């Protein structure tokens, strides 16, 4: 019998990983990779039948070797890399290590390709770079998909939503057969990027599926929930590939992702959280929609000089009060800052009442008040110099006396946070920056508009509420010494309950609350059990 090790592809992946694909008639081939002084068995080995070998036996393999403990093993060109089965060594040259990944995707047999997808989906190997991702996406789209229902499985997708920023949530159900081994895995993709899907199987009760119990392994708890995050804003059509364990005759079940506002995805995620009994799994699902904290933020450029007294105030306002109250807020801010105001209202639409309130304020104010924009997100950086002031109306109304006057110097960013401890005898000290990040008090913030907005932009897709993105930015700027976070006495402050970000997503949970959960999960990235 030919017990030779057949190596079709062998390539390296980031993090000191090597992936080998091929076939072997050996039922348990004891593969070893030799690289430099390291000799390492596979960290993970997948076996599967290959139609090209005309056998139902699992002759195909995909092996993952982890050389991360040997950081130099793959870097020294003078050292050869060998893949060995017993005493049989196959030399892998550096060129193959670099190019075989693309080759597998382009010309590898379907089963090896599908195994590679499972490797990515499981998280055992990092997702490939953009170039290879596009090739993978192209092949997924060209490959045969599995039906939703077959003798081997039945699977439904009830909901699959995707926010413009890349957050996705899905739910469905899965009924395997008694012989099925392994878990569902999934990938989401658009035209140019792949995302690993965190999928919580057996997460929800689905007693409605009992009629299937004669044909499949029905447990009563057959609902799954899934979440993911694409790293960049979505482009083109987007789909989710759910891979059925043991089924390599097709890529998996493909389902289109429905575009939804971020708020809709957050609501669906919140519903998913509520449906899960295990808080750890719920957190893992939520965490799957988040970008790591370090992403999207570099060291801030130095803050420019204070915009001169003649520069306008770009007021980015979350109006959380009644529409007529906008007039009072604008009046107070106008008097306090002594600058002309360009108002950007964080709202879906300018209602007649809001328009009248703005016009009323403009008729009274000593300096011009102009509506420059109305959208749920902050504006782009303005062309000319401007001082940006950001806040909720209720906060600015309360803090008007402490806002910067036209002649006040502004260095970097200034944050005034309504700290309930600030008014207490022993509450003025302590780590205000930490309280600002953790307790999430309402605040007003100001600084050079162009400088702040340029840095804020990349963070806006990470939160439902712009205030949360600005909180994140301010915390990072403070850590770099470019923002001052000061406490303000909260005595007499009452928060507004209106506006686009105060309306509950579900029950009493507002977008602010949702962002607070996201921030907590991002602060503690390892807490919670895997989904």
């Amino acid at each position, binding site marked *: 019998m030919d017990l030779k090790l057949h190596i079709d592809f062998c390539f390296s992946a980031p993090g000191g990983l090597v992936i080998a694909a091929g076939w072997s008639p050996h039922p348990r081939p004891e593969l070893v990779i030799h690289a430099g002084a390291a000799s390492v068995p596979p960290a993970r080995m997948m076996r599967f039948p290959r139609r090209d070998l005309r056998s139902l036996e699992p002759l195909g393999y995909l092996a993952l070797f982890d050389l991360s403990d040997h950081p130099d093993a793959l870097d020294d060109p003078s050292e050869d890399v060998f893949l060995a089965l017993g005493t049989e060594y196959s030399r892998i040259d550096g060129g193959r290590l670099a190019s075989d990944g693309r080759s597998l995707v382009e010309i590898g047999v379907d089963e090896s390709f599908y195994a590679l997808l499972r490797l990515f989906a499981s998280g055992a190997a990092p997702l490939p770079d953009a170039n290879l991702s596009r090739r993978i996406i192209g092949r997924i789209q060209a490959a045969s998909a599995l039906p939703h229902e077959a003798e081997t499985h039945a699977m439904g997708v009830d909901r699959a939503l995707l926010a413009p920023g890349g957050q996705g949530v899905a739910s469905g159900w899965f009924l395997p057969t008694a012989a099925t081994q392994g878990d569902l895995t999934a990938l989401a993709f658009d035209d140019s990027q792949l995302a690993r899907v965190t999928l919580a199987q057996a997460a929800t009760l689905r007693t409605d599926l009992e009629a299937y119990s004669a044909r499949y392994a029905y447990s009563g708890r057959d609902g799954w929930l899934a979440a993911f995050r694409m790293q960049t804003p979505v482009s083109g059509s987007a789909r989710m590939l759910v891979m059925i364990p043991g089924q390599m005759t097709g890529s998996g079940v493909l389902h289109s992702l429905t575009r939804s506002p971020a708020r809709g995805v957050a609501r669906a995620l919140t519903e998913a959280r509520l449906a899960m009994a295990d808080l750890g799994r719920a957190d893992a699902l939520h965490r799957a929609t988040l970008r790591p904290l370090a992403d999207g933020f570099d060291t801030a450029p130095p803050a420019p000089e204070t915009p001169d007294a003649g520069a306008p105030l770009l007021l980015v306002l979350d109006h959380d009060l009644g529409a007529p109250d906008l007039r*009072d807020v604008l009046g107070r801010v106008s008097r306090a800052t002594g600058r002309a105001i360009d108002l950007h209202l964080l709202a879906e639409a300018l209602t007649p009442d809001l328009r009248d309130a703005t016009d009323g304020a403009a008729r*009274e104010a000593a300096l011009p008040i102009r509506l420059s924009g109305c959208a749920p997100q902050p504006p782009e950086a303005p062309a000319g110099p401007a001082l940006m002031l950001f806040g909720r109306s209720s906060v600015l109304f309360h803090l008007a006396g402490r806002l910067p006057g036209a002649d006040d110097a502004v260095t970097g960013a200034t944050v005034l946070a309504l700290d309930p401890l600030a008014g207490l005898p022993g509450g003025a000290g302590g780590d205000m920056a930490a309280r600002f990040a953790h307790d999430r008090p309402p605040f007003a913030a100001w600084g050079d508009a162009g400088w702040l907005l340029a840095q804020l932009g990349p963070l806006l897709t990470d939160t439902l509420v712009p205030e949360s993105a600005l909180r994140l930015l301010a915390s990072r700027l403070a850590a770099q010494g470019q923002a001052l976070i000061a406490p303000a006495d909260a005595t007499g402050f*009452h928060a*507004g309950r*209106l506006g686009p970000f105060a309306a509950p997503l579900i029950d009493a949970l507002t977008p602010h609350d949702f962002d607070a959960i996201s921030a907590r999960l991002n602060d503690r990235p390892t807490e919670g059990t895997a989904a």
Partner: protein
Amino acid sequence: MTRTVIVSHSHPNLRYGGGEVAAYRQFQHMLELGEDVYFTGSTIGPEDSARFFGPAQRVLAFSDRDFCLRGMGMDAFVMEHPRIESEDWVLDFLLAFEGDVYHFHHFWNIGAGTLRRLRAARPDAQLICTLHELTAICANHGQMVKTSGELCYAANEVACAACLGRAPVDFALRRARMVTMLDLFDVLLSPSHFLTRRFEDWGVAPGRIAMIENGLDHTELPPAQTEATLATRSRRFAFFGQATPTKGLDVLIRACAQIEADADELSAPIALDIHGVTAQGFATLWPDLTPPAWVRFRGRYRPQDCVTIMQDYGWIVIPSVWWENSPVVIQEARAAGTPMIASDIGGMAEKTEGWGVQFRAGDPDALASAILSVHDQPLILADHIDRIEPPLDLAGFTQEWRVACAR
């Protein structure tokens, strides 16, 4: 000559409330004195306006000095015009008078924004405001009565939020807006010490509000009393007012029911006439209450006849379950020379002190006792009549007004 513009939230040609009546009497009196004075009132809201105005019509001119604006409906919580165009128009109208003095008898239908802009546009004009009730303090119709029916003693954001089911911040904003608005006025007037104290407790600086009673022109002296008239009148009681829940008519009828239960012990017949309310109107509000046969509903009356009608009674009952401020019915009773049985709170307690019989507000037992304590007691009636001082007339009001406003 100084030009005075008297502005009211309503116009007595269309509605006959205390504030607008006081404002209009002031206007008429100044007009009689030959002063350069204008009056402008307003309709209350869109429905009212539709009855009196044609399309696009903004003002009714009753004379070249007497106007009524088309009210577009103003949320008294916000106290701003619903549309900025309405505010623009009212402001333009007020500015067109080129007044030296603008005397406001309310700010509802005028708007806080209108007042701020008027102040800015005419910095040298004197702005005066007479506070007729507690609207600036209380968003529950300015009555400082909680929606649960309890009397309210002080406003604060959280308590008001609990009372009216709005966010506390709404009340913080409203208070700030009202304080700013009141600060615009050069002179604040109040027709009662009670109202003055409430505003001072709320934050208006002590001494900032001057107290002047509303003027009432009724120069005829009450008729002389005989033993016979005193005996007759001591058995006759009356209520003058509307069938609104805060006027306490239900308290009065419950008290009458108790008196009726012990009617056999009465030394003489008793009668109570309800003026301003019909039996049907009463039954609509309080279908479960059945007044005794000696309670008669007299329906509407002409305001100018009120004092004369009151002179037929021994006692006028004012059983309001809200504070009241300076009810015109008390002045009218004084003009009629008829003493009162009054709730022991607010403006009623203040204005009937010394010549009225007071009972615990909202308590039918106490009211029944008060009525029985004076029923068929001509000597007590005569004693109380003797203690009544005539109300301030319009000449007296104008004199006090000139002092308070330094005019």
